[in-house]
């Protein structure tokens, strides 16, 4: 096997092996645990960089393992998977840093970091999956590895949230499973690299194709938190902040959105999907989700719940971009995968900081937080502005391309949706920012861990959000440079999805 093949396995192993070792470490063995985590994250970053450079130079990375006669487990790195891999591994690095400080004194850290690493491994697996069965394989594993993280606190509320999470995701998994198997029975191996595989079935198997599509989309839609399958996401907020960050920005929700991309773009292909008349319903679901999520976010007083509903809304931009179905819109959707991840993780880091340092969870108690935690709130503000879509931040870029695509496609009404959603975003984010910076503090904080030297709190809690906020600024400012996510997305779209 050439090194290209090993590379993908190494990328998986670089987080899996540390994870497995961490399970065996004693609780008190903080040094080794942190070192292993960070080493794994850095090594993974380097490997991913190598891979991305390789892909841009036209190298092929693939490895296959026979699973069953006629069915292989395939890992393959195409530009789209590289996009997701890059996002996951970068954010994993930050989240690890953050989590080390965040969980400083809480119990069961070995378990936490073990599952954390496995979770990232599985997410990378989803990204690198080369066919539908491999995708399913890792997609189901994601449920298993995130469940212990969701119930990490072990409170009754956390256990209940875990149950709801399982109920939703496992049911989704079963639907997805049924769809995948059905499709495999119809056509055999469903490889992502074979475009137009299902086209010949359009005549004879129309109902079957529609049925399979519904099964597949509802299966991954649960994780992508499409309305009405989103119920688990706000509840899962009871998990520790790094877990929320992971669920929303890196792994679960993103895996769902990524899955929808794969299914619509690679399995069915846009021509077939629109030929079956399925793009429009999906687009409607996405718009509903965008508006509904924002509306619900308006009503929340708990900061993390607000962020959760915001995620519900924002992730559907990705779906919307795909379903508009024109290259510009696809670019907007795809790049939002990255942009939303970076911004949302910043917001969760900040929310975690506020909760951890000051014990503040409710928005109504946030008056004056900006004075006490200026850096944190600065990052928060930047990310929130990005979410709203203020130029030149990341969110603006996504929305711009979505809008352009919608106009090009002749779906002008979508602009109304976009504007409406932007207004809603502003309506729930701006009050927070206003309270934090411009209102006076009311009474003492529920607790205050105190400043640490130069920093307003533990430096490892502040640096990650600052970095991600900076990145969200940079990707917006430098969107037109050759190194930006947008450039990569343009590369993907022009090489794969333009021709049709």
């Amino acid at each position, binding site marked *: 096997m050439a090194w290209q093949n090993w590379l993908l396995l190494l990328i998986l192993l670089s987080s899996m092996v540390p994870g497995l070792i961490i399970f065996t470490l004693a609780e008190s063995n903080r040094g080794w645990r942190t070192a292993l985590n960070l080493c794994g994250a850095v090594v993974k970053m380097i490997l991913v960089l190598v891979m991305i450079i390789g892909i841009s130079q036209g190298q092929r990375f693939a490895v296959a393992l026979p699973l069953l006669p006629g069915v292989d487990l395939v890992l393959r790195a195409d530009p789209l998977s590289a996009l997701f891999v890059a996002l996951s591994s970068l954010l994993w690095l930050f989240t690890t840093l953050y989590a080390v400080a965040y969980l400083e004194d809480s119990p069961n850290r070995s378990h936490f970091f073990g599952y954390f690493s496995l979770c990232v491994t599985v997410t990378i697996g989803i990204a690198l999956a080369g066919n539908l069965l491999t995708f399913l*394989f890792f997609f189901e594993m994601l449920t298993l590895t995130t469940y212990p993280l969701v119930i990490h*606190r072990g409170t009754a509320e956390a256990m209940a949230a875990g149950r709801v999470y399982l109920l939703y995701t496992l049911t989704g998994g079963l639907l997805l499973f049924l769809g995948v198997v059905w499709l495999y029975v119809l056509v055999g191996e469903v490889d992502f690299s074979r475009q137009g595989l299902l086209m010949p079935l359009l005549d004879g198997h129309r109902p079957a194709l529609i049925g399979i599509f519904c099964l597949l989309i509802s299966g991954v839609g649960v994780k992508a938190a499409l309305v009405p399958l989103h119920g688990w996401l706000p509840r899962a907020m009871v998990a520790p902040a790094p877990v929320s960050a992971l669920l929303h920005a890196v792994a679960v929700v993103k895996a769902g959105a990524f899955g929808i991309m794969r299914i619509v773009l690679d399995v069915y292909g846009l021509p077939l999907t629109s030929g079956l008349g399925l793009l429009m319903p999906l687009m409607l679901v996405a718009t509903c989700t965008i508006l509904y999520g924002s509306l619900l976010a308006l009503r929340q007083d708990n900061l993390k719940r607000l962020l959760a509903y915001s995620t519900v809304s924002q992730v559907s931009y990705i779906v919307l971009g795909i379903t508009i179905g024109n290259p510009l819109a696809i670019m907007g959707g795809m790049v939002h995968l990255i942009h939303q991840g970076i911004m949302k993780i910043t917001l969760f880091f900040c929310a975690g900081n506020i909760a951890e340092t000051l014990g503040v969870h409710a928005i109504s108690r946030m008056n004056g937080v900006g004075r006490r935690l200026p850096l944190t709130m600065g990052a928060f503000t930047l990310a929130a502005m990005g979410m709203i879509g203020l130029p030149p931040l990341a969110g603006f870029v996504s929305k711009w391309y979505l809008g352009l695509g919608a106009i090009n496609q002749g779906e002008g009404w979508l602009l109304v949706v976009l504007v409406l959603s932007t207004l809603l975003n502003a309506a729930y984010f701006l009050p927070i920012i206003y309270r934090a910076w411009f209102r006076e503090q009311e009474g003492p904080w529920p607790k205050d861990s105190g400043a640490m030297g130069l920093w307003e709190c533990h430096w490892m809690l502040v640096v990650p959000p600052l970095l991600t906020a900076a990145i969200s600024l940079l990707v917006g400012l430098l969107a037109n440079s050759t190194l930006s996510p947008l450039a990569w997305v343009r590369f993907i779209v022009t090489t794969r999805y333009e021709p049709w």
Partner: protein
Amino acid sequence: MNLSPDSSAWIIWPVVVPLLGAVVCFLYKKKPRLAGHFFAVVTCGTSTVLGWQVLSQGVGRHLLGGWSPPLGISLRADGPAALMVMMTAVTGLGITLYSGGYFQSRLAGDSQDHRFRAQEQSFWPLWLLLWAALNGLFLSGDIFNIYISLELVALSSVGLTVLSGKPPSLVAAMRYLLVSLLGSLTFLLGVGFFYKAHGTLELAVISKALAPTPPVIMALALVSVGLMLKTALFPFHFWLPPAHANALAPVSAILSALVIKGSWYLFYRFWQGGGLLAAVGIVPALLGSVAIIWGAFQAFSQQRLKMLVAYSTVAQIGYLFVAFPLLVDSAGQGRDALFYFAISHSCAKAAMFLAAGTFFLQLGHDRIRDLAGVRQLLPVSSFAFALGGVSLMGLPPSGGFIAKYLLVSKAISQDLWWLALIAVVGSGLTAVYVFRAVSSVLSPHLLEERPLLVVAASMQWSALALALLAIVLGIMAPLPLALLEVT
């Protein structure tokens, strides 16, 4: 009589070695554990040789006494048989290692020295004898010989069940014994009708020539009912949960992982010919479907972990039967699904019962509600339990996933939608009850109770090894499937 040199001795060794081991353990009471381990390892080795021979050289036949059937008895080692022998060997080795630690821990931790020692002295010969009988069952090519092997299996299982000596286990064992005897006798009557119809006891001839004449149908019905009784297929499942749940930890694992597979395998053997499958294959499938649903509901409503796992066996037995209509065509995927369910259930269930037994030994109870926090005490066992659960649920990567995939895809390709749905719904229900237990086991509570004794490391790690094997089966399917192809 054929006296030319015979090169098929490898077929009989997996039967002879544990038989010999049973006698040695029976005679050598001073260190039965040592002898037990030794013979278990050797049996495992000979079983591996058998598997390897079948894989590399194809079907083997051993004519006992040099007499060829129908006069004599032949052993036949083909792919399915070899796979079952291998399954027994691997699971059996894990259980053996666990048992060593189990008895050691109990002897070290309690003053009930004499009672535990007696238990252990009885355990090893019975277990090895059971192992031999199972191997004999898998390999036997003669239906009367199968009857005797079935009786050996039944009696030694009962002997193992009563070892714990507690009244509930005694009553359960009695019920088990009576059901087993009823099953054996029904089977024997069927054997009689087969002999009347075909004039031979050779299984290969009988299962090939399943012409639907009245005696054959009656014989097949009797044999099937007898075997269903022994396998505890719904509605014959009533005896299983108390018997499996109240036994000693390694015994529960043996019964649930291995013993029911013996009679199930025979059921497959009798039906594999396919002639009657198209007509009545639906019957075991329907019973299996009900078993899946019913067992899952029962498992969910249990308060004790071992009862939950035992009812899960009832449900999983349903899976072993639900795929019978898929055996009709010769493509073999239905068979693959069946056997994959069997082997992955064997590893997973053994791991779960062993882990549950460790919890029980450590805490003195297995109430699911009060298990929260056991993870801190027994991290490895808890992990093993959870991994076993993953395989039962059919989530990737696990043997259960492969089996579910094979089953559902075969069902869809034959347009048996209800079957595919049952399998999917069943695995959802499995997830519900498995997570009920797993969330308790893995919950990060702090445990208040003090551990009763120190459990041996081998108890924890053998369970984990079996659970990991159930997981590994999910990515090395080509090997067992290649073995199954040898027929």
